[in-house]
């Protein structure tokens, strides 16, 4: 019957469309509707308009891949990697292709709006009504002016997540200075990956992620960096994976993680580890490297007499080791490392001692060899110490600044702005400088070593400590959903005047009093200096593929327009700045003096090529000596002072196994973590503190299709999100069958995951490849806003059961440290 119906429908369809076929082809550019015509005629290609290709940068993760955007007849219909972009090299990850969907998202905000319902909450309809841009800007500016007139400008706060460059987040610093708020802006770093940065600051003095020379490395020891899922730049990592796995000699890769995943599966060796204990394994690897004499003597140094005196459990005499580019090795060994045996580590990590020894010998005997990490080991209360132990292996292997090793990123040769904010500060702006702490208390005695503490801002506001916010403006961040324990934020932001600049209806937007929607990335003119990549400088540019299709505004221009409306010199500054295109034109002037390798030497050529870059990286450590590029080669032998100034920026100018940075905060670390003050500087094992009384760990990884802020509402992303256990319409809680059966949970059952904060529900799938003590729930769904596909889609959001606990040193939210229980729902 069904077949007959189909046939009938098909015939009726052909009949009804035959008449419109020719006309359709002529006006709409559609051929092939001539179903009844001979096939040969139908093969003729449809007439189509001119296809243009514009340069842009994908905005779905921090990687900043250059993209070619294909537009025909004013419609964007294709996105491919830009062949001329050194990150993309013509390639993309699975997210990149879905970008056209952002532009034509049916749930997009189509223009500025104001709220009519004063009540705020999950179940409150904001009652948005459209307003003009002038009304929106005037309303916000008047509010800001009023605060300033009352001497309360510190109660205005900017929050941002993914800032791109000089034309948006780069404007914040001046804005805060001129307006008079310490809260411009509160970044999301502490809810992102701040732990690895702090671990590097504590050991080699660089408060930064690393750049990596993957192409030339022969060994990667990967601690919890989802190299083939979410580590950045994911697209490039896959490219270089293909290279590493087919070059001669093939790069050997050991992955240490708490769960099975594509990176584990594709590596030569998959090592399962108990959550939060990576530092213990790294220390044991270091122990083996030292006792077996596998450290890089040219970088680290050696015993005065060349005899290896590292014996398990035995101290080495003071002064017996002649350090080269490292500091504190003797004390590190004597006070910590001598007892950190593989057997000890097995008892902490559950990794067999024989595996640790095998990994240490491989890592210690292969050059170049690097140890990488990201949020896995660092999103715990002991995250910085875990990260330091891992990073110490890069000193022992001698890969710091070496070919096939790791570097730090250089910045682009940008020109200056046409005006200097310092010249436009009025007496008020000067009088409030440094007067108030930030609302998140970052860089206060409460969080002295942090850069940002966004997760604290909501709770602090609720307590009124250090004060209450009046107005908050959000750009590319949604803490009311993504912060740990977000229900606190839901309460906190009820009495704050909220401005959201997102172009889609996220949770924070549901609290907005004014919505000032940004363009989508395919409509923006926006710069983007690279995230740490290969070290040499690069800055890409977004060029609009089409004119904005709705009444939206570039966030940078929204900021500038607000600035213009503030009375006094601040307004004059922004009138002089004019708009973001002017900012970018001035930045691009720097390229006139320093043309890129691809010939980019002006704003126009930057727009045409989409990227400026200049190789090579300027420094190279070779066999224990540092050399600087002199234009021809690595010919300049650097002094110790030069190395300290440019590369190893620690107090000693050496890679510190005993951290001066941490010792400067010894009392704080002792108070918060219980580490004796005389030991705080050592790279060492510190037990993680798990929140919750549950018997299972819960991790919430990001999958390859996790597009920042949006994949929960992209149909094609939802459909492909978690293929490993069959997720085609949602994601599942992955649970070891033994763990499930012990709780009478059947494969596919709806389950309840509980922490001290409450519970969320999910459907489960058996996954025998995971640790029985660890539940895996990809972070994606559980939205109560965000669009028609996202809203209300199970499972619940992992954040709802994640306590707001942070590493006291880095401030990184300990997203993976909560312990939970699970039961049938």
């Amino acid at each position, binding site marked *: 019957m069904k*077949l007959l119906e189909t046939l009938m429908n098909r015939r009726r369809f052909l009949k009804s469309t035959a008449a419109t076929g020719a006309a359709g082809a002529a006006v709409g550019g559609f051929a092939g509707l001539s179903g009844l015509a001979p096939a040969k005629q139908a093969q003729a290609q449809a007439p189509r308009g001119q296809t243009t290709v514009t340069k842009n940068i994908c905005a779905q993760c921090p990687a900043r891949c250059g993209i070619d955007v294909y537009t025909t007849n004013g419609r964007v219909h294709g996105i*491919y990697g830009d062949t001329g972009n050194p990150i993309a090299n013509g390639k993309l990850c699975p997210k990149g292709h879905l970008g056209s969907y952002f532009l034509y998202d049916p749930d997009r905000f189509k223009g500025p709006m104001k709220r009519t319902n004063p009540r705020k909450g999950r179940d409150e309809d904001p009652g948005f009504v459209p307003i003009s841009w002038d009304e929106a800007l005037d309303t916000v500016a008047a509010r800001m002016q009023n605060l300033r007139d009352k001497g309360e400008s510190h109660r205005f706060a900017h929050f941002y997540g993914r800032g791109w460059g000089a034309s948006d987040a780069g404007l914040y610093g001046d804005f805060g200075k001129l307006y008079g708020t310490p809260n411009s802006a509160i970044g999301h770093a502490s809810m992102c990956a701040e732990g690895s940065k702090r671990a590097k600051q504590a050991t080699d003095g660089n408060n930064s992620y690393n750049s990596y020379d993957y192409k030339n490395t022969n060994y990667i020891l990967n601690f919890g960096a989802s190299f083939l899922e979410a580590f950045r730049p994911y697209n490039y990592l896959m490219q270089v994976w293909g290279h590493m796995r087919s070059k001669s000699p093939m790069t050997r890769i050991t992955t240490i993680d708490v769960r099975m995943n594509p990176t584990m599966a594709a590596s030569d060796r998959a090592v399962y580890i108990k959550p939060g204990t990576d530092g213990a394994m790294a220390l044991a690897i270091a122990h083996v490297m030292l006792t077996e004499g596998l450290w890089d003597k040219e970088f680290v140094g050696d015993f005065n007499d060349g005899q290896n005196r590292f014996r398990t459990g035995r101290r080495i005499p003071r002064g017996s080791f002649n350090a080269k580019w490292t500091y504190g090795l003797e004390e590190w060994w004597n006070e910590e490392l001598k007892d950190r045996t593989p057997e000890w580590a097995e008892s902490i990590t559950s990794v067999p001692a024989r595996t640790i020894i095998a990994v240490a010998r491989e890592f210690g005997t292969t050059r170049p060899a690097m140890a990488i990490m990201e949020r896995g080991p660092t999103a715990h209360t002991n995250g910085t110490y875990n990260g330091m132990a891992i990073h110490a292996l890069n000193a022992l292997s001698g890969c710091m600044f070496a070919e096939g090793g790791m570097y730090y990123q250089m910045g682009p040769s940008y020109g200056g702005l046409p005006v200097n904010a310092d010249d436009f500060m009025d007496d008020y702006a000067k009088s409030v400088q440094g007067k108030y702490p930030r609302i998140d208390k970052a860089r206060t005695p409460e969080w002295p070593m942090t850069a940002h503490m966004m997760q604290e801002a909501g709770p602090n506001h609720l307590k009124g400590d250090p004060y209450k916010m009046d107005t908050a403006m959000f750009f590319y961040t949604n803490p009311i959903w993504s912060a740990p324990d977000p229900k606190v934020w839901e309460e906190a932001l009820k009495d704050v005047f909220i401005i959201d600049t997102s172009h889609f209806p996220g949770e924070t937007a549901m609290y907005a009093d004014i919505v000032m929607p940004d363009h989508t990335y395919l409509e923006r003119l926006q710069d983007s200096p690279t995230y740490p990549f290969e070290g040499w400088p690069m800055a890409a540019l977004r060029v609009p593929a089409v004119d904005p299709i709705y009444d939206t505004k570039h966030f940078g221009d929204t900021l500038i327009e607000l600035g213009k409306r503030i009375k006094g010199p601040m307004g004059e500054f922004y009138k002089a700045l004019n708009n973001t295109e002017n900012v970018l034109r001035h930045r691009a002037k720097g390229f006139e003096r320093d043309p890129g390798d691809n010939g980019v030497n002006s704003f126009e050529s930057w727009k045409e090529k989409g990227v400026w870059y200049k190789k090579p990286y300027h420094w190279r450590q070779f066999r224990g000596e540092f050399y600087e590029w002199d234009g021809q080669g690595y010919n300049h032998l650097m002094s110790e002072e030069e190395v300290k100034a440019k590369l190893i920026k620690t107090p000693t100018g050496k890679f510190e196994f005993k951290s001066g940075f941490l010792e400067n905060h010894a009392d704080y670390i002792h108070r918060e973590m219980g580490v004796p003050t005389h030991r705080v500087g050592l790279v060492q094992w510190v037990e993680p503190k798990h929140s919750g009384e549950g018997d299972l760990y819960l991790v919430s990884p990001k999958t390859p299709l996790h597009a920042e802020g949006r994949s929960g509402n992209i149909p094609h992303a939802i459909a492909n999100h978690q293929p490993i256990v069959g997720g085609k319409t949602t994601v599942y809680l992955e649970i070891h069958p033994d763990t499930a059966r012990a709780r009478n949970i059947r494969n596919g059952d709806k389950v309840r995951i509980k922490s001290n904060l409450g519970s969320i529900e999910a459907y489960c799938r058996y996954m025998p490849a995971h640790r029985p003590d660890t539940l895996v729930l990809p972070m994606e769904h559980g939205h109560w806003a965000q669009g028609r596909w996202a809203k209300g889609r199970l499972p619940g959001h992992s954040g709802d059961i994640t306590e707001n606990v942070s590493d006291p040193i880095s401030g990184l939210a300990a997203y993976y440290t909560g312990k939970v229980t699970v039961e049938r729902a």
Partner: protein
Amino acid sequence: MAKWGMVIDLDKCTGCQACTTACAMENNTLPGESWQDVLYYHEGSYPSAQMKWLPRPCMQCENPSCVHVCPTRATYKDMDAGGIVFVDWNKCIGCKYCMIACPYGVRFYADEKPLLEPDLRDIFPGQKGQLWSPPYQNPEEDWTRGIGVQPKGVVSKCTFCHHKVSKAPPGTPDLDEDNPALKEYVPACVRTCAPKARYFGDLDNPDSNVNRLIGDKHGVRLKDSSGNKPQVYYLGAGAGVPAFQPKPRS
């Protein structure tokens, strides 16, 4: 005429599904209508489990079962187009015999209950006879070859991106996306493959890189015993489909 073939190196494939989404956007398929899907398998248990994956395009068989069973000759192998197997949407009656006959499960019928609600077909309703009309659709369309957005009631499948490869200069042995002069002619899944696990070229040309790879790395064809003789070859470990195992209920 070339005989187009694809080579997929499973030792380099990272299972990211960029091929799947590149294909979906290039060919405007619906969620779940994954002409180029990636299948995942896991076997064994912690701490010695394995996980693997298999990207699966249409095999463009030399001896395609789907063609043999089609009652209206809508599906056909076009030797003038490199041996690609097409569906002529003007002739297809949506009977799905081909879907049953295909040993590889790479044919799709999207005119049914949607995988994902809300239904994209309601949000971007079909115009001019299309099943749905996404605003970002590719202007390329040729219903005699199953290119573009299909009408209601037909089977759809991978076309090896015929609308791209057919424009390549005749006699090109390999369509290599790293060659800027050729990248626009490369199938979407091959062009975007970041670890370069995919290669596309002429199987009739002994000098082509695809033939060299098949020779050097002992390329295999899936389910060769079926006699379908795919024009897609796999390299590396794990080039097989594990036997079906029902999922444990409890």
